[in-house]
């Protein structure tokens, strides 16, 4: 089967600093990838290059065979509608109510009707148990609620893949579970996901594959069981010994 996302020789330099270089990777439909690694390994930068929020210096990112790096502004907008993203700090639109946060892109980008978009938004909100928050503004939500709504906002566009950039790092410990369980449900429904996380248990239980990133390279790509029990590289061994 052709991979949904194919990353070829992706390199990101910032001035004279190489953040990562020559990364090759593939993601198939329905796969859940957890991207692990020490802080500063370039995981988030790498993830943000996948939907071109960060511009790679060179290389290719193919989504269903179409390259994002070389695409025009207009094509890029089109391609981005297929790639959802969930941020560490939620980034809900502060000037919009929850429902407007969710329906903005479906209406403005996909041209959905207001009624249709809202109906769908309510359905999605129900699945995360937050339909009662539809008309409040983000500043009255807890972190866990905000992140669940951010996930709903991404889902409302029917993306092929969702990128998670440390989705639980900014949460109070007791709120982490509610967000992870939403993500777990998505995984069960075969949503394709790439997740940068420090939640080792979650990565172990939910992922199809672990990518271990350090020193500007993906050093290991393994099934979770193999990675956690049998890390091959010394870097991964060191990382795991610190984390667990």
């Amino acid at each position, binding site marked *: 089967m052709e991979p949904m996302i194919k990353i070829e020789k992706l390199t990101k330099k910032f001035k004279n600093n190489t953040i990562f270089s020559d990364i090759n990777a593939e993601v198939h439909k329905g796969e859940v990838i957890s991207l692990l690694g020490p802080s500063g390994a370039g995981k988030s930068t790498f993830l943000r290059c996948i939907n071109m*929020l960060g511009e790679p210096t060179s290389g290719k990112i193919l989504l269903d065979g179409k390259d994002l790096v070389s695409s025009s502004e207009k094509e890029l907008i089109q391609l981005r509608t297929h790639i959802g993203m969930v941020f560490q*700090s939620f980034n809900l639109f502060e000037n919009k109510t929850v429902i407007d946060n969710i329906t*903005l892109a479906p209406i*403005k*980008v996909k041209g959905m009707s207001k009624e249709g978009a809202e109906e769908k938004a309510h359905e999605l909100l129900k699945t995360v148990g937050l339909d009662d928050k539809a008309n409040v503004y983000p500043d009255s939500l807890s972190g866990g609620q905000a992140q669940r709504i*951010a996930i709903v906002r*991404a889902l409302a566009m029917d993306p092929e893949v969702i990128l998670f950039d440390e989705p639980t790092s900014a949460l109070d410990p007791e709120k982490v579970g509610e967000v992870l369980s939403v993500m777990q449900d998505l995984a069960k429904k075969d949503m394709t996901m790439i997740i940068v996380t420090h939640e080792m248990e979650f990565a172990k239980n939910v992922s199809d594959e672990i990518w271990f990133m350090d020193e500007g390279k993906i050093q290991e790509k393994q099934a979770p069981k193999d990675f956690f029990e049998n890390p091959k590289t010394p870097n991964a061994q060191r990382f795991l010994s610190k984390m667990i």
Partner: protein
Amino acid sequence: MKNKMKHSVLITMLLMIATLFVTAFTVPSVQASASDNSLQQIKQKGYIVMGTAPDYPPYEFIGKDNGGSKVYGADIELGKAIAKDLGVKLKVKSMGFDSLLVALQTKKVDMVIAGMNETPERAKSVDFSKTYYSSGLSLVLNTSDDKKIKSYKDLQGKTIGAQIGSVQYDAVKKGIKNINLKGMENINDLILALKSGKIAAIPLDTAVAQAYAAHNPGLKIIDAKMPGQESSNKIAFFKGATSLENAANKTIDKVNKDNLYTKKFVPAAAKHITNNKSQSQFETMWQYKNFFISGIEYTMIISVVSVFFGIILGIIFALMRLSHNWLLHSISVCYIEFIRGTPQLVQIMFIYFGLGTIVNVPALTSGIIAISINSGAYVAEIIRGGINSISDGQSEAALSLGLSKKQSMQYIVLPQAFKNIWPALGNELVTLIKDSSLASVIGVGELMYQMRAVQADTYLGVAPIAVIMVIYFVITFTISRIMKHLEGKISHGTND
């Protein structure tokens, strides 16, 4: 390295713009045309525009007319006579005395009748008609000083005031040694300064001095006894407008033959000089309420329209300044720095007189253009600050959902930015309302201008100032409260 280069390019661009402006407009804008068709043009237009500075009773002053205001005066009567002889209508355009000759050179007016005397300097830039009225130089003093000051010689070592640009100003400056001369634009201000003892005397044309002294108890006029100060009032024309000048001279000949100016024009004008002595100042101000109302209207028109365009310009230039396109960025930086680095008063005059050499823009429009452009630069900086205050995460989230950069700005960033900068925009709005008073220099009938008109008509110095001060405060205070109220309303987001 790259940045340094960009900087020097930027500075060069700024300098180029500055020099461009200067050279474009200092080259004598309109040459005296070889073939003079000035008279023909007037006849084709069907009207002649006369420029004057209406703070010079009885020559020219603003009086009440069915509740509104109108320029009256002996010079206006003369203007009418000339227009009648030419078979055209007379239009009167008021402005500061200082601006009159510029207006003539830039063809904003066809002739200037403003109790003006010919001087060698003036004769370089405009042509003068025959003398239509002669008057002498008098001194206006406080009655308490009439023992100390008997002639111009007694003014040595004293502080005196004169109208900037007037022949009296020059006469005193050249003729009296060791004198401390204060120039003011407006005779009413001079009278106020005299009454409050800041200056000892004002040299004025005798007829004008008489008009002011008659309306200000406690003031007295004496003959200055200064040799060679017979003043001869003449009409000024655009240089080379010989045919028009000859036609006017014919009228002047007629007027002089029958001594119409003193016999007919001055008395006709004097009828309109209001006598308010029997009333309280408050009652007088109330009588002039229509002046102030019309002033408020203009002030509000200027403010509302300028705020609208100022914000549009502000958004455009803020976005250009934030743009990654280096050219757009530089244009915006130049605009902002240039506008913020030059006085608004100068900008207003530049737009009116400078731009006026290319296209004929009415004073009100010029004022609005200048104030909008000025405000745009300040608003751009406020908006830029507002946009920078919004976290990148907001636009990143929008982009990740497939919104374009433009949509992200429109729906997410700008609404939040506006909420953050609301108080600063409120301040800018209040500043703009206050600064609209500067448009009075080019004769826009806003509050400041109307205040001058009321001063000239009532001979009351302070009361009109107090009235417009209160009006300005009421307007700006109301606006501040409204902005504050709206701030509460938009505390959440947009009306989208």
